[in-house]
């Protein structure tokens, strides 16, 4: 392994204490109420706290907290693009970077971006792009940076919501907000907005899967869709509907946060 000379290095190998846990791990129940008291098989999303404009240096920023999941997003730009392709002359470029803080997951992550993070960044980009009026920003790029401070499940979905809010806060012209929602299918029942332990503990039953949807509420368009695991086609269709319903639940909260942010930003004094 090449040594990383740009960071303070620790020992070559270290192991997470959870590997030696002497207590048996608690598998979340696959029926009845969920560990945090929410209802199964219902569009019961965690209450979210959102706020715009926390990063003073950024053009726009947003912070979202859903249960213990905490994300911060900042938007820089539009500024001159670094890459000069022909396509950039007509249309702006959206770049996304989503990273997990090393302490954000139960197992410590690495500073170096893994391919998993790139996957998250890519879905974020493909989900946001349809909502942006990129043709209004020729020759420029808009950068979206998302930092996951604490991962307590449904990170991708909340990152999408948070990033679209930050883009709106930055004053980037958009067709619509983008809202994200995840569900986890567990046999015949499902949980909306799953927590980390609900996402990672697979009980033995068949047909387990995860689904994340990015949705433009006022245009009624799905801009991002990703699933894994095993699902019957009918379950998948029902899952997408459930996610869309979850997005609609989130919509007024996000709208309110945006209105609040606009009110707080005082109108510039008239030029005299």
């Amino acid at each position, binding site marked *: 392994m090449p040594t*990383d000379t*740009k*960071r*303070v*290095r*620790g*020992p070559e*190998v*270290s*192991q*997470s*204490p*959870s590997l*030696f*846990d*002497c*207590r048996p791990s608690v598998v979340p129940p696959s029926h009845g109420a969920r560990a945090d008291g929410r209802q199964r098989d219902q569009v019961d999303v965690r209450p979210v706290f959102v706020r715009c404009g*926390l*990063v*003073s*240096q*950024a053009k726009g920023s947003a912070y979202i907290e859903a249960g*213990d999941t*905490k994300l*911060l*997003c*900042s938007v*820089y730009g539009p*500024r001159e693009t670094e890459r000069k392709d022909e396509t950039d002359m007509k249309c702006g470029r959206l770049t996304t*970077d989503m*990273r997990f*803080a*090393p*302490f*954000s*997951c*139960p197992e*410590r992550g690495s*500073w170096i971006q893994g391919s998993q993070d790139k996957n998250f960044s890519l879905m974020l980009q493909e989900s946001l792009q349809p909502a942006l009026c990129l043709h209004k920003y020729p020759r420029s790029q808009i*950068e979206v*940076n*998302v*930092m996951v*401070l*604490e*991962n*307590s499940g449904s990170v991708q979905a909340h990152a999408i919501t948070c990033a679209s809010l930050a883009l709106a806060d930055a004053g980037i012209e958009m067709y619509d907000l983008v809202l994200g929602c995840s569900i986890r299918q567990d046999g015949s029942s499902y949980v909306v907005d799953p927590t980390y332990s609900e996402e990672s503990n697979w009980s033995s039953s068949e047909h387990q899967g995860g689904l994340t949807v990015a949705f433009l509420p006022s245009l009624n368009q799905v801009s991002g869709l990703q699933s894994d695991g095993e699902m019957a086609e009918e379950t998948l269709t029902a899952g997408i509907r459930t996610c869309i319903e979850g997005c609609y639940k989130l919509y007024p909260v996000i709208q309110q946060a945006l209105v609040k942010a606009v009110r707080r930003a005082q109108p510039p004094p008239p030029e005299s």
Partner: protein
Amino acid sequence: MAAGFKTAEPLEYHMSFLKENCRPDGRELSEFRTTTLNIGSISTADGSALVKLGSTTVICGIKAELANPTVEAPGKGYIVPNVDLPPLCSSRFRPGPPGEQAQASSQFIADVIESSEIIKPEDLCIDRGKLCWVLYCDIMCLDYDGNILDACIIALLAALKNTRLPKVTVNKATCKPEIDLKERHELPVHKHPVGTSFCIFQDSILIVDPTADEESLSTSRLSVVTDEEERLCSLHKPGGTSLSAEKLQTCINRATARQREIQKLIEKVLNSVKAAQ
């Protein structure tokens, strides 16, 4: 008008304030920005703290892992501090491996930890020569508006005070560790080093707790780290214009006063966190 002046002649703009013994954000020369602290908000970390110094925001999360101690120091654990300045916190940072400033900050924090003895590496030993703790102290800037070193040290100190390590027993028969993640104990924090950073304008004007703008316009910088016994843990002056001995003494005095304020603030927040539990 003022905005235009600020953009066109930033140094003139700042100097016109400094001449009147005040600063563009309304502070006095030796006044810190409001410092707020949030301790233990990240439940996935073994210890965490978020510090806001004006709009500069820094978060520190500590993760403990198990490792074998080195042959040279069989009775010592590891403390691995790293400062990250992600592109999220300011447009001046690019994605990719840590830049010069992040590397220098990490090294500075590592030096402070070593010279101040904030944590004794011996306390991290579990089984001499066989097993010890590694404390990964990951410090991340979320909003860069100057003076991150001070913010980093406060975040680190508060996060260490918040750290609870799980109980480990080494199974005699298998020689494998057994860990009880529910039963946790505090980490002994021996010293409370706190940093105070200054900027020097035109060889003479000293200001404390510089913003990002002030940092980029100043001719020299100085960071002083002291602990509760008024011992000097670290003094960092990377080049720039020179500084007289009396001025340095004033800086150190300011730093010791700041140390008391911050230690009090950390205790207060820790107590309120405990009371809430």
